[in-house]
């Protein structure tokens, strides 16, 4: 079976073939490996990679949006997706594509503290465009790319739900 795994900004082709009760022949981008793997707990996978006998634990669980997967390895975390399931970093990117335009969406329920841009403004990539307060913190939401502000759908003080588009770019 072959899977397309999107992790770390690159899609890797991973093919797997069972070679024994818990042994698998795995080819990653043409590189063959023999891996001894078992599930460990609800989200853990324990892998021992042949040759060096390196033992590594990877924890895979749905992220808070339920749409993405988070992989944890040795205390570090990375988003990963299997096959077509969009490797979108859930709502955290603060951006969603919508017919050519892009929106800065609220990653969580909160209150709009400040709106930093207005319609027609030119913004750079990662420029802060709006500040939303949640969990006692002010969070600056940034433009995912450079562009021009098409519309701002909220004003300071407004309560917003998670997923609401706040600033539209074009």
């Amino acid at each position, binding site marked *: *079976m072959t*899977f397309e*795994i999107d*992790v*770390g900004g690159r899609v*890797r082709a*991973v093919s*797997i073939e*069972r070679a024994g009760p*818990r042994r*698998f022949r*795995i080819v*990653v981008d043409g*590189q063959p*490996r023999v*891996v001894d*793997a*078992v*599930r460990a*707990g*609800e*989200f853990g*996978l324990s*892998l021992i990679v042949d040759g060096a006998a390196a033992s590594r634990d*990877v*924890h*895979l*669980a*749905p*992220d*808070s*949006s339920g749409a993405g*997967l*988070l*992989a*944890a*390895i*040795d*205390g*570090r*975390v*990375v988003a*990963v*997706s*299997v096959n077509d399931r969009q490797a979108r*970093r859930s709502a*955290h990117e*603060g951006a969603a594509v919508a017919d050519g335009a892009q929106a800065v969406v609220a*990653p*969580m*329920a*909160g209150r709009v503290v400040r709106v930093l841009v207005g319609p027609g403004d030119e913004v750079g990539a990662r420029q802060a465009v709006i500040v939303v307060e*949640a*969990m*006692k*913190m002010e*969070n*600056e939401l*940034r433009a995912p790319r450079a562009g021009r502000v098409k519309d701002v759908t909220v004003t300071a003080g407004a309560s917003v739900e*998670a997923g609401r588009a706040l600033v539209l770019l074009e």
Partner: protein
Amino acid sequence: MKILIANRGEIAVRVIRACREMGIPSVAVFSDCDRGARHVREADQALHIGPSEAARSYLRGDAIIDAARRAGADAIHPGYGFLAENAAFARACRQAGLTFIGPSPEAIALMGSKTAARGVALRAGVPVVPGTERPFDVRATEEEIARTAREIGYPLLVKAVAGGGGKGMRVVEDPAGLSDAVRTARSEAGAAFGDTSVYLERRLARPRHIEVQLLCDGMGTVIPFVERECSIQRRHQKVVEESPSTAVDPVLRRRLAGAASAVARDAGYTNAGTIEFLLDEQGAFHFLEMNTRLQVEHPVTELVTSIDLVQWQIRIARGEAIDIDPARALTPHGHAIECRIYAEDPDQGFMPSPGLVRAIRPAAGPGIRDDGGVSAGYTVPVYYDSMIAKLVAWAASREEAIARMARALREYQVSGIRTTIPFFLWLMQQPDYREGRYDTTYLDRLLDGRRAAFSKLDEGDLELVAMAAALDEFLRRSAPEGPPAGSVRSLWQEAAWREALRA
């Protein structure tokens, strides 16, 4: 005694543990979204006090006092945050015949005003950061404020008198920014604290934040503790604390302790409190403010002094005299570091990351203390501070404590939400942090403009994650069919099916 804990999360769990060890029944309160929270489950009793918004639950003093009455509690522990430094709430407790486990309402009110607190420090002969001694009148003219600012010198800070946690505070680099800063600070302070008063304070260039924990009983005993170093801050929020400080030697420690004790005595302070100082580059310290409550970072003090601060808070509140060897409180035994684990995504500018905690397996073993506030199955809500646990490492030396913290961070597993663990792993490797060379501006400078992810995975790691994700899907597809569908399902069938999934 029966104690109601007017708080939630890890600090409520911390107080419940202290109660249980002392044989005191504990009462939790909870908002709508906290019904399944850990503090509710661990307390002996639990009462609902309102909707999820803090203003309608954990900040509702009347609802909390009513809950205490209904539960038969005779004391209230406020934790930190929420109503912990609210003099009116402490007074309402007193009027309701409840013991407030903390200082008197008078002491809270006095030290809660930053300008009044500065006055207390000055009277006690303790240096303060140069600045105005009284808040500006609301009718103060721009000219008047600008004149005072010139006297103090730039850069300076506009600070809310009732402020805290960086709210209502503005940095002013030069005269041009002054009136704007005063206006926004006033408006923020008004919204947050209901008090628009502000004052000016010189901004020290690269100070360290050093604080002294105190315990004061009703008989006049004041015990100062070895200092805590809290200079690792992100946007004025502490994220790592340790004790002792690499910048404090025994002589300075005694001077800090003496200054802190003098302020507390002058304020007629009782119970646990903390005096915060700024230590400037010349090694001189300046009184900053007093926190009239238990601090988030109290565990590092507990670990290097072996004194249980929460249990002492309770003992002092029930009228006991402090029975602590002052030398023990002031002599650090080893080194302790605390990392505040937040439900935030460090790789997205520390954006809050609320949501369902699918699994959590805290670090443990030698020298590790986990003060956790959530368990698997709990949904971290959007309504409150996002801290889910405090991970504390103790070792004989600072170097070993850092190594131990790194080991523990690597071991700590949280599934379902993002946390600041990868950030702390990164921080523990920074040369300046490891050498103890830092001040309150260090972390913001380090993070400023940084774009790389804290979760640094090399090509080998990424390949491993790719293999694991593919294997996960492979095993899922080759697992036996799902459990029998239908409205009546048996636990045993489900269990058998889950086990079959275990590969």
